[in-house]
Structures are given as structure tokens and as C-alpha cells.
């Protein structure tokens, strides 16, 4: 029998504030995963500034791609396909990666595959867990997205729930700012919450009527702000660690409840986490405990694969590539690209 040839994907990701490139083998094995983070720059502004992000991408991108090839010990000529994030994200930031990837693909004669950023996050689980295969339920939680997705097959997604207002990560950032923790808020709340009592303050767990899998986080965010204001007015001291822990628990409770409900309703006993907030330790623990109780297999990527990275884009691109998906020279950045859209 003929030996199956390995497929090497060179992946590029520049949808927000990380310039990233990776080489991924057969969709599951990461040969390199280079991330040039801009967080320090954006901290000055309390959030990502799109124009600054775009400028940094263009400065770093060739260096990052070269580093990804070097670390993998692979030459450009050995690459089978180039995967690039083309949405959703900041349009100016996406355009840098897209234009760069198209030019390399064209000049080197390597096929190009446009990848959906969230499909990338979901696909990080293929890297983290080699035996994971669809179908499974995936909860995608990040600064820009909160989606509950049924992954029917490779490249086949069905969104069954999403946030009606703030993304979960966005709520973390806003609450972190309100209690003076600064940007980015997620990891800071996670750390502080470990010293606090999650049952000290009761914050609301919002339900969306007639949409059992949808989320709403603006209510819990406002409740925290009102609580802080109330303490301020009454001259009562605020125990920041308790606020962080109680807020975090309120958010996690809703995320876990909806995800577990979906697993039961769809009869798919596999649940995966994805996105930046998937590295939140309280969420992981709560999800793990709930899955154990329900007899559901639980999957989550390592923190480096939860953050924006290109290895996940390489994993997603691999399955698109072997399914015959190819992007043309006119591939454009699509800032509000919907999941499952081609």
C-alpha cells in the first residue's frame, strides 16, 4: 500500500492584536506556533486600537512567518497549503494577513485556504486532543464571541446559541476595568478571584426567553457596576476579590448550564471549550465537574491554543484543504464573517 503523504500547512493569523504564524502537520501536529503579541502597546489605551494593531502586523508579519518555518525546520517549498484567517475580526488587521498570504501563495504557487477565525478556535481542540472527532458540542468564549455550536462534521457548524449583547470576555474586560484591574481583564479576574469568595455577592444569571442556549452578559456586568456604585455611595469598602469571584461564578454558571443542556438535548456526549476565555481556570473546573457528573467527555485546548494563534488556523485549514476548499486571488477580509459561511 502506498504510504499516505503528510500534509503541511503554513498558517497566518492577524485578526486582532496578535501577529501569528504556524506550521501544522496533518491538522493535528504543531511543528511551530509563533505569536507576536501587541498587548503591551494596547494596554496604554485600555483596549485594542485597530489602526495601531494593523501597523504592528505589517511590521512583524514576515519575521513571524520566517520564524514559524525556521522553528518547524520546513522550507516554504515543502508547504502544501497556506491557511489564513479572513474573518471575523478587525478589517484593517485581517487585510494584512490576507494580502500577505495571497501574495506568498501566488508567488510560490501554493494553494490558499481562507479560514474562519472561530472555526480555528474550535479546531484548536483537534490539536489538543488527537482522538477528538465530530460530532461534538463546542462552547466558544472569547473577547468578541460567545457561541454554542454543534460541530456536525469537519467544516460543518450549526450555531445553536449566541450572546444577545456582550461577549463573555467583553464582560470580563469591563468588570476588570471597573474594579481597577486594567486590560486584558480575563486573566486578571481569574487570578484575583482565587483569593475571593464566589458566594459573597449574588449577581444575576440571565436567561433569554424562548432561546434556551442564548446568552446575555450585559445584565451581570451592570449588576457589578451598580454594586460597586452602591458600596461607594454608602461608604462601604469593596472586597475586589469577592466581586471578581462572584462575578466570575455568575458567568461560568450560565455558560456551564447552557452547554450541558445542549449536550443533553442533542444527545452528543462530547463537549469542547474554545476561545480566549476557555483558559479561565474557574470555567474549566466548573465545566469539567459538570461533564463528569453527566458522563460527558470534556475537551479543552492548552492556554497557548486558546489565545489567538495560527496553529488553530492551520488545523482548520487542513480539514478545509483535504475537503477541496481553495481560495482565489480575490479573497477579501470579511470583518463580520458568519460561522459556517463560505
Amino acid at each position, binding site marked *: 500500500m502506498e504510504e499516505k503523504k503528510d500534509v503541511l500547512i503554513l498558517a497566518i493569523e492577524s485578526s486582532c492584536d496578535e501577529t501569528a504564524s504556524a506550521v501544522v502537520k496533518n491538522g493535528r501536529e504543531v511543528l511551530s506556533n509563533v505569536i507576536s503579541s501587541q498587548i503591551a502597546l494596547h494596554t496604554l*489605551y485600555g483596549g485594542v*486600537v485597530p489602526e495601531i494593531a494593523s*501597523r504592528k502586523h*505589517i*511590521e512583524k508579519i*514576515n519575521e513571524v512567518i520566517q520564524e514559524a518555518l525556521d522553528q518547524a525546520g520546513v522550507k516554504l517549498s515543502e508547504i502544501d497549503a497556506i491557511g489564513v484567517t479572513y474573518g471575523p475580526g478587525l478589517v484593517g488587521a485581517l487585510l494584512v494577513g490576507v494580502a500577505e498570504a495571497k*501574495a506568498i501563495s*501566488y508567488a510560490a504557487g501554493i494553494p490558499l485556504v481562507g479560514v474562519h477565525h472561530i472555526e480555528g478556535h474550535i479546531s484548536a481542540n483537534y490539536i489538543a486532543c488527537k482522538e477528538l472527532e465530530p460530532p461534538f458540542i463546542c462552547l466558544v468564549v472569547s473577547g468578541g464571541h460567545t457561541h454554542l455550536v454543534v460541530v456536525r462534521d469537519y467544516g460543518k457548524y450549526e450555531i445553536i446559541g449566541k450572546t444577545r449583547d456582550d461577549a463573555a470576555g467583553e464582560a470580563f474586560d469591563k468588570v476588570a476595568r471597573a474594579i481597577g484591574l486594567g486590560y486584558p481583564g480575563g486573566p486578571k479576574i481569574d487570578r484575583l478571584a482565587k483569593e475571593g469568595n464566589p458566594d459573597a455577592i449574588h449577581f444575576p444569571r440571565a436567561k433569554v426567553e424562548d432561546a434556551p442556549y442564548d446568552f446575555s452578559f450585559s445584565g451581570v456586568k451592570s449588576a457589578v457596576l451598580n454594586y460597586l456604585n452602591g458600596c461607594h455611595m454608602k461608604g462601604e469598602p469593596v472586597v475586589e476579590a469577592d466581586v471578581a469571584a462572584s462575578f466570575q461564578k455568575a458567568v461560568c454558571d450560565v455558560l456551564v448550564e447552557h452547554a450541558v443542556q445542549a449536550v443533553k438535548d442533542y444527545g452528543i456526549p462530547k463537549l469542547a471549550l474554545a476561545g480566549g476565555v476557555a483558559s479561565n481556570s474557574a470555567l474549566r473546573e466548573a465545566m469539567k465537574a459538570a461533564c463528569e457528573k453527566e458522563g460527558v467527555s470534556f475537551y479543552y485546548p492548552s492556554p497557548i491554543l486558546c489565545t489567538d494563534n495560527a496553529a488553530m488556523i492551520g488545523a482548520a485549514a487542513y480539514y478545509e484543504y483535504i475537503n477541496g476548499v481553495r481560495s482565489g486571488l480575490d479573497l477579501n477580509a470579511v470583518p463580520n464573517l458568519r460561522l459556517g459561511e463560505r
Partner: protein
Amino acid sequence: MKILALDSSGLVASVAVVEENDGNQNLLAEYTVNYKKTHSQTLLPMLDEIVKMIELDLKSIDAIALAAGPGSFTGLRIGSATAKGLGFALEKPLIDIPTVDGLAYNLYGTDRVICPLMDARRNQVYTGIYEFCGGSLHVLEPQMAAGIEVIAGKLRALGREVIFLGDGVPVFRKRLEEELMAGEKFSFAPAHLNKQRAGAVGALALQYLKEGKTVSAAEHRPVYLRLSQAERERLEKEKNT
């Protein structure tokens, strides 16, 4: 010597291939479109069209030249990322041509002073002042972002005949004619010469290449001549406190 040239700094998208053999220069192909601003979708297909048309082996080019700024921030980055990707894959250097210099080069050989005007929004233009002297481009005022009255003041002080070009002309033509250049002699470049042309960028780049003025694809970055709005506001705030 063969150079691939790109300009996506403004509304125009333009791609060209120029060469020089034994002192003879040739424009092998130029594709210039001034229609809708979708450079990210048009630039590479335009290049592909040229490559097929002139049966170009991309590996045969010596460098990739581009209008490296100023211009539309996004437009510049599409050109930059395209050039950087081509340079990366082909292992060729880049040549950064200041956008306004490239525009001025359209009017090679004129005896007038050249003043390109690119609409920079916020009531400013990207501009500069140039002349041709002994067959080469001389920079009298290097490219800058300035109010139209600032550049008009410099031109009046020079007291020479001026020719204007660029997409800032329709925006400021009336003000120039009625108030700013009153009493001065000036004219406007015709349609085939008055916007960005990659052919001019490439021709100027031939000279840069001979002088060894190249950069690596990795180190190239566009010249914006302006900070981002967020940086500007932060610096203003710091100044006021």
C-alpha cells in the same frame, strides 16, 4: 534589470513591470484602474493578468517597488503586505518609493515646478514640491501632510510656474484658483498623467536600484506621515496635563 511596481496608496490601483537593458528603459506592462476602492480584491488579480499577458516569470524580477506612503492607511498596507509576501516567496528585495515622489515622476521633464496633491482628509493634503533638473527629479519640499494654504504659501514664495496633479486637485481646485494662487501661473496635469501610475513608480525605482536603495521584505514598512488617531489623542491629553 526588471522591476515589478505597485501603487495602491489612493483610489487608483496600479501594477506595472519595467525593465532596463543597456540603458534602454521599457514599460512591459501597466494595469491601472481608477474605479472602486477594493484594492484587496483587485491588486493581485491585476498582477496575475499582467504576468499571463507578458509571460513573465516572476523569479526573473530583480526587485519589487511600491508606493510606500503616504496615502490611505489601509491602501498602503494592502500594497505593503502584497509586496512583502511577494518578496518573501521570491526572495527579492523591495524598493520604497515615496508616494508623492512617484506622482511627481509622472511629469518627467517639465520645466515647471511640480506640486502633487493627495487628498489626506481632515482638510489636509499629502504634498511636496519638485522640479526636474538635468533629467533627474529634485525635491524642493519633501513629502508632507499639510494644509492646502501651507503648500500654496510655499509655492507663492517660490514664484515659479506650477503644475498640480493628484486626487486632491478636484477637492481643492476652486480654492487654489479663486484665492490661494491668485496672480500666480499654474496649470493642472491631464487625465493620463494626473493620478498614481505604477509605471512611474517602477521607472523611478530603476534609479533607486542602481543606487542600491533597496530594503528587505521583512524590514519594509509604509510611511504614514501621521500617527493613528488614538496616539494623537493620547499625546494631546498628555501635553495638556
